[in-house]
């Protein structure tokens, strides 16, 4: 049935269903259950059509485009789905599908408290915005749908509006995203000034006419504007508060997909539009990537709010994607197209992988939160017994995000490593040094991420429950387990078929202008993935099969050798005292030593308060509390000064607002005269 539908019509059907889902949910806002089913089923159908459309374009189909003029001159509703767009549509649909299935079960706990109809309206609108952002072909149209996406996600962040924290998180997101959008608008205006068009095609053709200084301005504006959406450090401050505030399946989409639209536009503008970019662009992106990945994971280590922890890991992974992209830019500038292709493949591969495992982890966290009603990991514990499926699936995601073979995270980090290694020998000392530092940052990031996920999984699912809610928890609804199961399977499948995936990605990259004749830097002989340079080769299928076979063999032999031995169930060794859950290691305690080691970056503080029974003798404390905090250096040294400066300026400007109507008329008159003079000159 579906084969009859072309890529183009599947795409429009996807948009149609999102529109229907959006409006239908709004109409059903008084009927919770019906709105939930309608909104999520429409989203599911739309993502199936999105997948169909994307796969057809990716596997050899031609790009399709559509343009419709609007009454407003420069704005035209034109979009093109080429292979790059198709790849991002694929990622969006791939995550939207399980997230919406999960939503069917998850949204139930809002019944009677918050309106699923409103949620469905913004959810479908948000998805439609995502679809259009990665396919828009006209800057003004792009900005329109970008704003739809941003606003819809803003309303999703403040959906649970009776929590005051969510409102402030939403406000922070609103301000940051619009500061970013302002940079993007400026970037497009600069491009318009020199190319004379808002159409992407025309900008691409005339890009050579843009003078070098303007190109650099466009680069910086792009970096700031789309970097804000992607969550690069130090523009990330909205991300750890906004992502956790949204409903879980929306968090999964925001973290897994929405921040990638920033990456998409990086590739569009920095690779597609501007061949022959200067070397320092790539160096800058590399350094930002290294900083984001390392700092992202360090901040994640300090968190005991499970969703914030995952949000910080999004910053880390955006950093890893930027490491691939940055090395691609450097190679691109140096004329090493084949290596640039390797970097881009690594970046796109990690984009896909991060979307899959981060969505999985967010959905897992959501299941835990819906049972325990708290995001504080210190109140979990022992959930592996009450929620066995969630635990196993969350573990899969943890292994994948820690880049452990044979899961998908390893494949893309391996490619990123190789792409960075390629930069060691190719350039002068200083550039090679940047590559070496980036690879070092990636190596430490991998280790720290593993530490962080031992903490997250261990504190959440292992040992004994640390709260009544955790002890009373139940496995989550079947649709939620199904949504997570699909994603968990994908982490393994993408890992094992990493060779095939990188081949498809090389086709996506070869579709970029300037890359069509470049030799493909990866080959996939006999289920392995090897570099064209012959420097390295690896095979995840082999790792998977041999690990499984050898483990099974070891277990079988041990079983044979110890057949007569008994297994006694006893108590955990307790040193003679009664073991309570308070004696288990906590999430905070687990990462305390790493925080102390990195105190130069994290600036931890410790405040001890002791109250004594007797103020004079001071031998017997009555209460004792320790408050551990991490200083928010970005607020303290960047955002606060900016805020103070803005307020000071505003106070100065306020002086002209004297309340006297006569004075205001003088202002008007003066402005009029000034305009007249300007017009005459």
């Amino acid at each position: 049935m579906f084969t009859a539908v072309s890529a183009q019509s599947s795409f429009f059907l996807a948009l149609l269903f999102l529109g229907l889902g959006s409006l239908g949910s709004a109409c059903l806002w008084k009927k919770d259950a019906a709105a939930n089913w309608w909104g999520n089923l429409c989203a599911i159908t739309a993502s199936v059509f999105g997948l169909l459309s994307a796969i057809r374009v990716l596997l050899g189909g031609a790009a399709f485009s559509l343009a419709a003029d609007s009454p407003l001159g420069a704005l035209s509703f034109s979009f093109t789905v080429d292979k790059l767009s198709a790849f991002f549509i694929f990622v969006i649909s791939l995550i939207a599908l399980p997230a919406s299935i999960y939503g069917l079960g998850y949204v139930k706990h809002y019944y009677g408290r918050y309106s699923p109809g409103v949620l469905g309206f913004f959810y479908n609108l948000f998805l439609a915005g995502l679809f259009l952002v990665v396919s828009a072909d006209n800057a003004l149209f792009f900005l329109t749908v970008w704003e739809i996406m941003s606003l819809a996600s803003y309303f999703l962040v403040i959906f649970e509006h009776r929590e005051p924290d969510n409102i402030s998180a939403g406000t922070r997101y609103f301000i940051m995203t619009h500061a970013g959008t302002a940079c993007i608008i400026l970037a497009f205006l600069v491009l318009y000034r020199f190319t004379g068009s808002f159409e992407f095609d025309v900008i691409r053709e005339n890009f050579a006419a843009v003078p070098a200084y303007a190109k650099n301005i466009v680069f910086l504006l792009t970096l700031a504007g789309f970097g804000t959406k992607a969550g690069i450090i130090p523009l990330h401050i909205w991300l750890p508060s906004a992502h956790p505030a949204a409903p879980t399946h929306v968090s999964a989409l925001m973290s897994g997909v929405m921040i990638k639209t920033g990456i998409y536009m990086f590739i569009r503008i920095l690779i597609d539009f501007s061949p022959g970019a200067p070397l320092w662009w790539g160096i800058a992106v590399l350094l930002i990537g290294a900083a984001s990945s390392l700092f992202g994971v360090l901040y994640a280590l300090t968190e005991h709010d499970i969703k914030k922890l995952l949000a910080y890991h999004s910053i880390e992974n955006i950093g890893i994607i930027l490491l691939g992209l940055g090395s691609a830019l450097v190679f691109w500038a140096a004329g090493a197209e084949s290596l640039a292709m390797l970097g881009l493949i690594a970046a796109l591969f990690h984009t896909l992988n991060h979307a899959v495992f981060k969505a999985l982890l967010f959905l897992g966290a959501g299941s835990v939160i819906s049972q325990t009603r708290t995001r504080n990991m210190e109140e979990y514990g022992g959930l592996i017994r009450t929620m066995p499926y969630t635990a196993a699936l969350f573990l899969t995601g943890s292994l994948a995000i820690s880049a452990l073979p044979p899961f998908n995270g390893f494949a893309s980090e391996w490619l990123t490593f190789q792409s960075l290694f390629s930069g060691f020998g190719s350039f002068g000392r200083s550039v090679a040094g940047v590559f070496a530092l980036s690879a070092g940052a990636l190596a430490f990031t991998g280790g720290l991420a593993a530490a962080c996920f031992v903490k997250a999984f261990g504190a959440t699912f292992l040992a004994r429950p640390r709260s009544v809610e955790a002890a009373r928890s139940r496995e989550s609804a079947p649709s939620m387990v199904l949504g997570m199961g699909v994603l968990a399977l994908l982490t393994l499948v993408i890992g094992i078929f990493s060779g095939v995936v990188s081949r498809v990605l090389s086709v996506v990259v070869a579709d970029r202008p300037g890359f069509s004749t470049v030799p493909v830097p990866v080959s996939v002989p006999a289920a392995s993935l090897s570099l064209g340079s012959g420097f390295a080769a690896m095979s995840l299928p082999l790792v998977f099969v041999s690990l499984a076979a050898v483990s099974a063999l070891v277990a079988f032999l041990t079983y044979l050798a110890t057949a007569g031995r008994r297994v006694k169930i006893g108590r955990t060794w307790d040193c003679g005292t009664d073991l309570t859950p308070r004696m288990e290691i906590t999430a905070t305690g687990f990462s305390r030593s790493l925080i102390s080691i990195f105190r130069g970056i994290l600036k931890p503080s410790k405040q001890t308060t002791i109250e004594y029974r007797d103020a004079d003798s001071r031998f017997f404390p009555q209460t004792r509390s320790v408050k551990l905090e991490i200083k928010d250096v970005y607020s303290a040294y960047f955002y606060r000064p900016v805020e103070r400066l803005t307020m000071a300026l505003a106070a100065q400007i306020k002086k002209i607002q004297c309340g006297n109507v006569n004075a205001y008329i003088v202002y008007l008159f003066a402005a009029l005269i000034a305009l007249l003079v300007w017009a005459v000159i």
Partner: protein
Amino acid sequence: MSLFGLWFLQLLLVPALSPLFIGIVRRVKARLQNRVGARVTQPYRDILKLFRKDEVVSADASWIFSSAPYLIFAVSILLGASIPLLSAHLTATVLGDLLTVVYVIALSTFFLALAGMDTGNAFGGFGSSREMTVAALTEGGLIFSLLALAFTAHSSNLFVIAGAISSLSLLAFTPIILAFVAFVIALLAETGRFPFDNPATHLELTMIHEAMILEYSGKKLALMEWAAANKFMLFLALGANLFFPWGLAASASPPALILALGALVFKLLVFCVLVALLESSLAKFRFFRLPDLLFMSFILSLIALSLIV
């Protein structure tokens, strides 16, 4: 001998020999402390004894606790087959990729740390926390010290590296020494030796590895101890055959392999004595001084790398 045969031989070689080297280190340390010490075969007897014992499992433990020993042991012997032990001939093995080896080791560390947290024992949790702290900071030095070799050999396949380093001139060897020092630091950290961890202690203030496996007993403890011995031999063999790859078999014929086995055992014996000497002459570091050492390992590797490329 066919490639698969050689691979299978390597798979069995590490578990067969690894307890011996633990025994040797203990024996040498005992002699240095004016004790007689147990026989070098004592670790074999320990493992055998543990396999014969009944097992006590905590009621709080989950399937992670019960399955981790099998996975960790499987990783340790699988890696034994993925690195050059006897000859540099298994170059076709894509399992011998540098990053794959390092991350498969990380996989077993991940499960070891989870198993430590699983029973809710206070010691286990602290052991896991310390282990992951050390492991996270070791990874940089480990990858980069091996990377220095990879760039010398123009390949990140460990077998190719072993082949290329053996034909290196003495002059080109200088940066390799730096990388070797960096590797030794990573080795001591990964295998839980002085100054990082005391393999002979059950003192709660300092233990790392022992704290994590505190709840294990019977066959699973045997597997855990054996896997730790395998890992120790694995790292020694990496040091011996990547940095000093002399005496590797030139062909896959049985006499050449037996000769190579002799060379390997001899080199590992030297390494064991060195480790024992180091452990006897060095005090365990304070936990918060360890990162300095690990960052030094990373920086040494960087210097080695910058001299090579």
